[in-house]
């Protein structure tokens, strides 16, 4: 049980929150979960292009965080640890899915997400519609990147990780990771120019 006066503070760092959870403060875990919920989910969903599988992995990732919280070492950032768990679960899932699902079938979800973005019912001003179109195009472009480039890009923008951390998580060299990020960003910029 948390100590008296050990109330969870919303602006606590991730590392402080996981420490509180290890000491029995379940509210700290909830705050941590809500803080990173969408980032982890988007990382999974845009890599896998399948919302159901992303949900399944999302649950596995956070179960692992809760179970192994006492093993977390504050020497590394919490987000690095969190996204390394997500990466490992996702790689395992991709390996299993390759045996059952063809890659073509994975593209349907991407097209559906793009359609939802474009057909947002809140559309009213023309500028907003253009922005939504641009956003939808970018999301589609991200999902069409080669897997390694897409993963590196999503780890950077969703996990807020630097090149060294991404290289460590993906098991790649620093230079390889840097090249993947450069290629990914070049392609996305080119797509945006074409869209404009």
């Amino acid at each position, binding site marked *: 049980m948390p100590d008296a006066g050990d109330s969870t503070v919303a602006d606590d760092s991730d590392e402080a929150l996981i420490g509180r959870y290890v000491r029995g403060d379940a509210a700290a875990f909830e705050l941590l979960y809500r803080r990173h919920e969408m980032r982890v989910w988007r990382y999974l969903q845009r890599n896998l292009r399948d919302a159901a599988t992303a949900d399944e992995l999302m649950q596995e990732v956070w179960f692992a965080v809760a179970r192994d919280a006492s093993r977390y070492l504050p020497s590394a950032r919490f987000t690095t640890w969190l996204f390394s768990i997500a990466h490992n679960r996702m790689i395992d899932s991709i390996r299993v899915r390759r045996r059952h699902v063809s890659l073509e079938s994975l593209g349907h979800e991407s097209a559906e997400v793009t359609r939802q973005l474009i057909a947002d019912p809140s559309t009213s001003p023309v500028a907003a519609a253009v922005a939504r179109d*641009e956003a939808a195009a970018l999301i589609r472009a991200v999902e069409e990147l080669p897997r390694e480039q897409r993963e590196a890009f999503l780890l950077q923008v969703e996990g807020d990780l630097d090149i060294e951390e991404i290289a460590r998580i993906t098991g790649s060299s620093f230079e390889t990771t840097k090249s993947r990020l450069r290629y990914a960003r070049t392609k996305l910029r080119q797509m945006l120019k074409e869209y404009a």
Partner: protein
Amino acid sequence: MTEELDEIYRRASALDPSRPSESVRRKVLEHAAALAARPRPAANRPRWRPAIFGTLAAAGLAGLLIVPRVFNPHPPANSADTAVPAQIPPDADAPPGAGAPAMAGAPPTAAGAPPFADAPSMNSAPAPFRPPQGAAKFRAIAPADRQAAAPQEEVGNTTASAQPASPQTEPSAALRRAAETGDVQALRVILGAEVPIDAPDARGRTALMLAASGGRA
């Protein structure tokens, strides 16, 4: 340009209506709360750590004290200042009637004495010479009376060599003990009583072999 791309991506993410399932959130938070409420293993509780470290330190200290004795079971030789009369307990001065048969049931009287006279002592301090009651009688016998006492001793020693019983029952056990510990004064007293010097113990070791093993041959 990098910041612009990231900004467009963040805007696109904000507009993306895709969301994780609400049931996932509920399951995750319930699971986390259940784990938080579960008592953690004792080893992870901070208040147990001093006790664990204290136990380990005590075990380590005990190991440091025991290991040298295991690897060096033979204590160093008695120094010359270990006087025999001072080491003989009062009950060792038994009446002259206490002969070899009486020694068979005589238990060790001092706490530091090993249960068997030939057993190597585990104490680091030199084991005091503690002759059996028969040896005390030998000391009490005057040189003039040795002739008379000799037949009785020979009978006892013959019996002992024919049937190597417990080393404590033999007068030669005192000789071997004195040879092993290097107690010169005790050796003089025992040899004066014409104890057979080559009588082996249960493991076939004579007084000479024991003295040689201690570097005192």
